[in-house]
């Protein structure tokens, strides 16, 4: 694919911090309009989780909420290479996946507030957020548990011959679960149309990946399954897009799965109120200079693609959309009626007590 060079090389100091850091080389099949849409979705996900943290601290959101801040380029870059009817599976950090797949922030914010108008009728919350209509098969609170589900969705596509592919997002933590091995092996054995994307943020809850794995470049494991493995800059949405696009094309042609490792750094705590006493935050600090919103903004301006005012307009819209979502969730959406408590344990209104 012909690449439009936008930045000759990554400054050495960036590579010292983030060895996978790559320049924003934009594939020619992404017109400026789509680039800006990607920027908007990244901002929307960023603002969503920024506000979720405040709302959680203020007691408006209960349970657990895990931030996708810093990972936005992975979901937005990857989903940019999908058709609307393709499937994705998610992690416990699902908000960004919903937004990237075209979901609605009002419905999601209503769910986080436990409201009946939410995606899950107030029964799932952040950790089970699901937008099946847009092909998002649900966040899950158990690390790695969506891997077999992704293989199943891909198996369904293979049986039906419907040409859909499935992206399985998971973390470096998930890559150490047994089902990770089983799932990739099975998908590889049968050439299933699934793309495994490891969001390697180098932290599993409070434990750094390099303390619990000898090989910290997850993509290298692909060889053990006889499938291609690639590593990309997880802070670079265009790099994620390009790698995913190639993998999607392979999958649609029946050539089987690809393992993509999107490497970056978890910028915040494991969950919204995590004090991160277990790591030296000064080591995280430089990564904030490399995260996607900073670099995208610089990319648009340095290449004189859009004006500062236009970027501000997009940024303002993201902020406003989330403010509107919060207003909707808090002031317009309603509590689930008590009589819905036993609904949907079983299909078709069946209640078994």
């Amino acid at each position, binding site marked *: 694919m012909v690449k439009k060079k936008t930045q000759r090389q990554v400054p050495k100091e960036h590579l010292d911090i983030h060895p996978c850091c790559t320049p924003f080389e934009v594939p020619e099949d992404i017109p400026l309009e789509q680039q800006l849409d990607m920027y908007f979705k990244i901002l929307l996900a960023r603002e969503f989780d920024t506000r979720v943290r405040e709302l959680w601290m203020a007691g408006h959101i209960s349970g657990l909420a895990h931030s996708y801040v810093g990972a936005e380029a992975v979901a937005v870059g990857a989903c940019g290479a999908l058709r609307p009817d393709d499937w994705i599976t998610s992690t416990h950090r699902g908000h960004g996946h919903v937004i990237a797949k075209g979901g609605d922030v009002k419905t999601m914010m209503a769910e986080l507030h436990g409201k009946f108008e939410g995606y899950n009728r107030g029964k799932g919350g952040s950790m089970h957020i699901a937008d099946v209509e847009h092909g998002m098969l649900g966040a899950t609170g158990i690390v790695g548990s969506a891997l077999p*589900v992704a293989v199943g969705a891909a*198996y369904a596509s293979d049986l039906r011959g419907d040409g859909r592919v499935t992206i399985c997002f998971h973390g470096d933590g998930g890559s150490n679960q047994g*089902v990770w091995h*089983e799932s990739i092996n099975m998908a590889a054995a049968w050439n299933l149309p699934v793309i495994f994307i490891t969001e390697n943020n180098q932290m599993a809850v409070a434990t750094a990946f390099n303390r619990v794995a000898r090989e910290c470049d997850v993509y290298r494991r692909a060889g053990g399954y006889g499938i291609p493995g690639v590593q990309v800059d997880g802070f670079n949405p265009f790099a994620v897009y390009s790698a995913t696009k190639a993998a999607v094309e392979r999958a649609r042609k029946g050539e089987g799965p690809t393992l993509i490792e999107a490497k970056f750094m978890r910028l915040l705590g494991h969950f919204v109120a995590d004090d991160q006493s277990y790591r030296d935050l000064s080591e995280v600090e430089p990564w904030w200079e490399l995260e996607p919103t900073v670099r995208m903004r610089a990319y648009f301006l340095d290449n004189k693609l859009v004006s500062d005012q236009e970027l501000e307009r997009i940024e303002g819209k993201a902020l406003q959309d989330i403010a509107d979502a919060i207003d909707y969730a808090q002031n317009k959406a309603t509590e689930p009626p008590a009589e819905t408590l036993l609904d949907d344990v079983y299909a078709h209104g069946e209640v078994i007590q």
Partner: protein
Amino acid sequence: MSIITVRQALNDAMREEMIRDESVFIIGCDVGLRGNAFGVTKGLMEEFGEKRVRDTPISEATIAGLGVGAAAAGMRPIVEILYSDWITLAMDQLVNMAAKMRYMFGGKINMPMVVRAPFGGGGGMAAQHSQSFEAWFNHIPGLKVVTPITPHDVKGLLKSAIRDDNPVVFFEHKRAYTLEGDVPDSDYTVPIGQAAIRREGSDVTIVAYSQMALKAQEAAEQLAQEGIACEVIDLRTLVPLDYESVLKSLEKTGRIVVCQEANLRGGMASDIVAEIIDRGFDLLEGQPVRVGGLNVPMPYNKGLEEMVIPGVDRIKEGVRKALSD
């Protein structure tokens, strides 16, 4: 009517449902080329192809999870766990995903998935090939659990399970594959959640399921010669459990014995007795009695194994105990 084995009933049910509905497929270890360890799926891969009858690697968690994903995407997977003992490996996918996904998602998906699992002891297969884990699944909201024993019920309930939009755990007793019985030649189903009265009687109700339902009938026949009239209820389904039939029988007899093959502690019999106390305490004229396996891992030695698994004599003892006060 034809006389067929349980093995044939299972095979026929799957074949007929796969013809009826293209979204039905089977996955599991050795279900294809070998036709399953007990010959249950013989011929199906030849008939429906490798994709619809899929031999898998030995990866129970992902076999089950693949079923979850495929069901969420609109298929009707039949997932086979070669021996139900190894369902432990698939527990996370069954308990945390299959059972809860519809509820967690606010009803946005169906989970039309069947998990077939051969259970039960009696073959000298020791502690990891003989267990009965049905009580674990009884505990999990969102799952249905069926345990038929006759060829008629096995076929009819497997068809119902395949057509059900909920995850159904289907326990087949591995000592019963050669059991023969009458089966209608035309398409039929047995509804999930309906018990069958196997024998009528007015002195005591014996509630049992799977292999124990057969032993209960044998015990009832022997007790009849002593003048004790037992009513035998084969539950057939454990979730939802047909308490209406159980309580109706109890109304008549006032006395009840609940039998299970699994070791007794934390088992179905305990739960059923507790429910009977909650729902029909006033109907009881004597203490409810549980009959079940000993709380010990299944031993290999035949003599020791026989001591663990409750037989006809233990059911008869249970009946006498129920009648003793």
